[in-house]
């Protein structure tokens, strides 16, 4: 099986500084690939480069075709990035945030149907449809930011630190929501996360990114374990 999203030798440069240096990987359709690593490791830069929000060198292929080089066209091609820190439109209502997410969608009834499904799944957002998004809680804003991205009918969803700054219960809600929508819409997910335990809940494979370089590719399950020696921790858990 060939990868749906193929990244080859991707590099991102800000002036003199190289934030991402020759990263390559593939993600299969419906798979979630986590990219973990400390702050400043280049996760956001990598995700933005995939969604064409920052300039890069190297290739990003979707089903074998290069993802167009502008952010607008990349969204149109189905690669949608959910920003770190949520970045909902704070002064717009929840409903308008979702409507804005559908900017690239031509047919109105398509996105309206999708919004209706989203409201069914998240009644809390439906109740607050006319409330300014800036007034929502952090967890609600994260759900809204993901929902907004869904309105663009993504085939590849790039999630930048969706667990950042959320309460433990909000993290559980976001995790469940992500599982459900990925199933329902058959999406491929690139999950950029500092929180390895969270990444392990959603992904099976993880790239460890350090200073812009992939240091290793690991089984995501090993990330969730606190002990430095995975084998020991595994046997301890079985007992």
């Amino acid at each position, binding site marked *: 099986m060939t990868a749906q999203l193929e990244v080859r030798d991707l590099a991102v440069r800000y002036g003199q500084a190289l934030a991402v240096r020759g990263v390559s990987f593939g993600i299969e359709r419906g798979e979630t690939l986590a990219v973990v690593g400390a702050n400043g490791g280049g996760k956001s830069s990598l995700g933005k480069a995939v969604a064409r929000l920052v300039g890069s060198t190297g290739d990003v292929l979707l089903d074998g075709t290069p993802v167009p080089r502008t952010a*607008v066209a*990349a*969204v149109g091609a189905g690669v949608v*990035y959910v*920003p770190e*820190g949520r970045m909902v439109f704070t*002064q717009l209502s929840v409903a*308008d945030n979702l409507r804005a*997410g559908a900017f690239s969608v031509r047919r109105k009834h398509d996105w309206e149907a999708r919004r209706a499904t989203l409201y069914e799944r998240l009644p809390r957002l439906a109740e607050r449809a006319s409330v300014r998004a800036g007034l929502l809680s952090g967890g609600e804003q994260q759900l809204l930011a993901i929902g907004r*991205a869904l309105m663009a009918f993504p085939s590849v969803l790039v999630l930048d630190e969706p667990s950042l700054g959320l309460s433990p219960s909000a993290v559980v809600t976001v995790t469940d929501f992500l599982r459900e929508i990925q199933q329902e819409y058959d999406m491929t997910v690139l999950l950029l996360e500092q929180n390895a335990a969270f990444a392990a809940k959603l992904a099976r494979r993880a790239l460890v990114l350090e200073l812009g370089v992939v240091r290793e590719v690991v089984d995501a399950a090993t990330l969730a374990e606190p002990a430095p020696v995975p084998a020991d921790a595994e046997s301890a858990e079985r007992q």
Partner: protein
Amino acid sequence: MDALVTTILLGIMQGGLYTLVGLGVTLTFGVTHILNFAHGEFITVGAYAFVLFAGALGAGLALPLALLVAGGVAAILYVVGFRRTIGNHLQGLAFSLGLLLFAEAFFVRTFTATPRSGPRIEGTVSLIGEEQLPVGRLVVIGVTIVVVVVTAFAMRRTWIGLALRACGDDEFAASTVGLPARRVGLYAFVVAGALAAVAGICIALVVPITPATGLSFLLKGFVVAIIGGLGSIEGTFVAAMMLGLLEALGTRYVEAGLTNAYGFVLMIVILLVAPAGLFNRRQVRAG
């Protein structure tokens, strides 16, 4: 009593014109973060276009043509100039100030400084008591109210309105949903140019115009946009009405020579109380 009614109507009319100008300032600033000091020249362009076309083709055709000319001029200036200054405030400042000086000189050279009158709406009616109210002013009040309401509605209900609000709210987030920020900036300039042209036409309907017509309104437009909390439509409207009424009442009952000072006093007082303006709900975001 009758004098008070007239004064209030005059204040509402001025407030309506300030709203049209302030909306353009706030809209272009919200989307592109350019404070366009040449914005007032769109008023002048609209006013002269209206007067000239009205002389040649009649007022009916002159109305849409004046809007088209001002919107077109705004579009061209955005594409060749303003667009390239986005993200560089000093460049934007230099470009818009240069443009302002150029436009003023251009208008004086082309049209001379002699005031010109277009198709004025003359005559008065007496609505309340003995006081005669000029029809032209009442028409201007009606026009500005309709245009402001339509603009506010369009900002809420249309795709362009949503795009303008989304880009003004968070440009990066807007780019993640596939909004072309630079193109949306063009829409902002065209809408701002057309709104300024409506103001210019309204002004030409009640008083003679000169090359300096736009500039005097620009300063007031800035004041109301800032008091309103840059980027807010409701704020601009409320601030414009406050300023218009304050000026009219102050001129009539306090001291006519201070007309232009009232607004700045108002701005200073309000900014001392609410430093971000009346309706600024923008939140400081961490990171």
